[in-house]
């Protein structure tokens, strides 16, 4: 369980003249949870989106379980993969969005079944069984036939987590999964993520929930200005931050 699952090497990302990422290095070990903290605009979400190639890196590279994401290496060149190959790679990365992005015209169950059937070509009956199990796991077995608009924000995000899990991904990415939720709904979503952490799912979570980070994270990385300023176990980063900016951020959030 000690191999590196996600390996981010010297990743830069620019949008025009704006440098969102300015050389990020991060290793996430198999079965571990990494929480990324940082002020808004620090590049957290961009980093997450480069991992599954929703945003293309400007330079640097990312591997998942040893496989280069979005590119094929030939000598000292990285050739970008075709859309179809990138889509295939993405099935090994689960992504949970801040705004859920459930498909509103499909029921909760259909939302979870869609990708395993169309992207992984699994038999529908089997995918439906898996989907029911997953909805059960996030506590929504009785909401299988509900449409997203008939669900609360917290329930929608739990369906979105089940949908991401349905592909049996090697790693799960959470982009501020509770930021769009009413305060009383945050707990139910965090509980689901905590359960996943306990079962040894490799995860990278961008969040502002410090309590959650302290409880679940194996590693906390603090980002600002497109760089990881410091990283380490929660006790270290949260209680004895070395960097001035980390201290300033924590004092504001706490």
């Amino acid at each position, binding site marked *: 369980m000690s191999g590196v699952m996600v390996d981010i090497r010297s990743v830069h990302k620019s949008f025009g003249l704006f440098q969102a990422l300015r050389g990020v290095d991060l290793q996430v070990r198999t079965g571990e949870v990494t929480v990324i903290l940082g002020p808004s605009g620090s590049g957290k979400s961009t980093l997450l989106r480069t991992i599954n190639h929703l945003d293309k890196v400007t330079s640097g590279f990312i591997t998942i379980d040893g496989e280069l994401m979005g590119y094929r290496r030939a000598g000292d060149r990285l050739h970008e993969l075709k859309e179809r190959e990138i*889509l295939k790679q993405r099935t090994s990365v689960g992504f949970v*969005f801040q705004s859920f992005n459930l498909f509103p*015209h499909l*029921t909760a169950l259909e939302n979870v079944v869609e990708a395993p059937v169309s992207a992984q070509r699994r038999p529908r009956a089997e995918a439906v069984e898996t989907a029911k199990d997953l909805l059960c796991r996030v506590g929504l077995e009785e909401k299988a036939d509900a449409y997203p*608009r008939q669900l609360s924000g917290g329930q929608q995000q739990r369906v979105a987590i089940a949908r991401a899990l349905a592909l049996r991904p090697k790693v799960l990415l959470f982009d501020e999964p509770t930021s769009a939720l009413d305060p009383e709904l945050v707990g139910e979503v965090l509980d689901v993520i905590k359960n996943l952490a306990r079962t040894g799912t490799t995860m990278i979570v961008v969040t502002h929930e410090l309590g959650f980070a302290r409880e679940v994270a194996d590693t906390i990385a603090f980002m600002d200005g497109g760089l990881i300023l410091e990283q380490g176990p929660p006790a270290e980063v949260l209680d004895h931050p070395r960097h001035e900016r980390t201290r300033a951020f924590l004092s504001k959030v706490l």
Partner: protein
Amino acid sequence: MTSDLRPAETAAETEFDAASLKIVPARHPLRWFATAVVLVLVAMAGHALITNKAWDWPTFGAFLFQKSVLSAVALTVELTLFGVVAGFVLGTVLALMRVSRSPLLRAVSWTYTWVFRSVPLILQLLFWYNLAILYNQLSFGVPFGPSFFAVDTMSLIPPFFAAGLGLALHQAAYAGEIVRAGFLSVDAGQREAAAALGIPTHRQIRKIVLPQAMRSIIPTAANEIIGMVKGTSVVYIMALPELFYQVQVIYTRNGRVIPLLLVATAWYLALTTVLSVAQYYVERRYSRGALRTLAPTPLQRARRALRQVT
């Protein structure tokens, strides 16, 4: 604003009467007056339609289901179907080209829309009808190279196809914009979520984007389809016996202009009615998930009312 209710009194009264107070809806005398006026006008119109002999209802009755009229209606329906189906298929292609990342495809799509929206339909139809003058042979082969076989344009494009093609190509320019508007109405997060799940591109469009786009496509598309039913009357210039042409043929023969125009009116009304009902149900189908609960259809409501009576 003044009020008779003093706070102390209000509190006291509320405890007593809150449940027994009766709510009286506001009266709308003007609305009643307007309704009365409209009723009189409707009665006058009805009276005029029935009593004025010039409408010539017996002739209307005689020709409404006459064989040549029925086959003209069939042709109108065929032209509409051809124009709408081909038009929207091509329109969807144009919309996809327009949102593509290739600047050339975007430019071609834009130019097509520009040209075909600019030129009047009647002019386009005449162009297609006279295509044989421009190119009397169509040949299939290597572009700019040898030809494998050739066909006479006249035999390849009979009047029906010239008309159908003209309607479809014209419709495509509008349909493209309608479909594109539909695509734009779908949140970008939907495409992104589908991509993040690794769903194949064609399926992202067909299963995720299009069904959601349909909600904003259908009302405008229905307008276009109904427009097309009536638009087919333009092909009378190609001497195709569709509804409008056919009633003209009949009334130039027997001189009964008004009743035959009424025959055409009745059929256009009937066709549009069928389409409007179809639109209602198609819209309902695509609003699944968009509303928390679907409103019952008129049929369901009627059945429910009947059950309450019995």
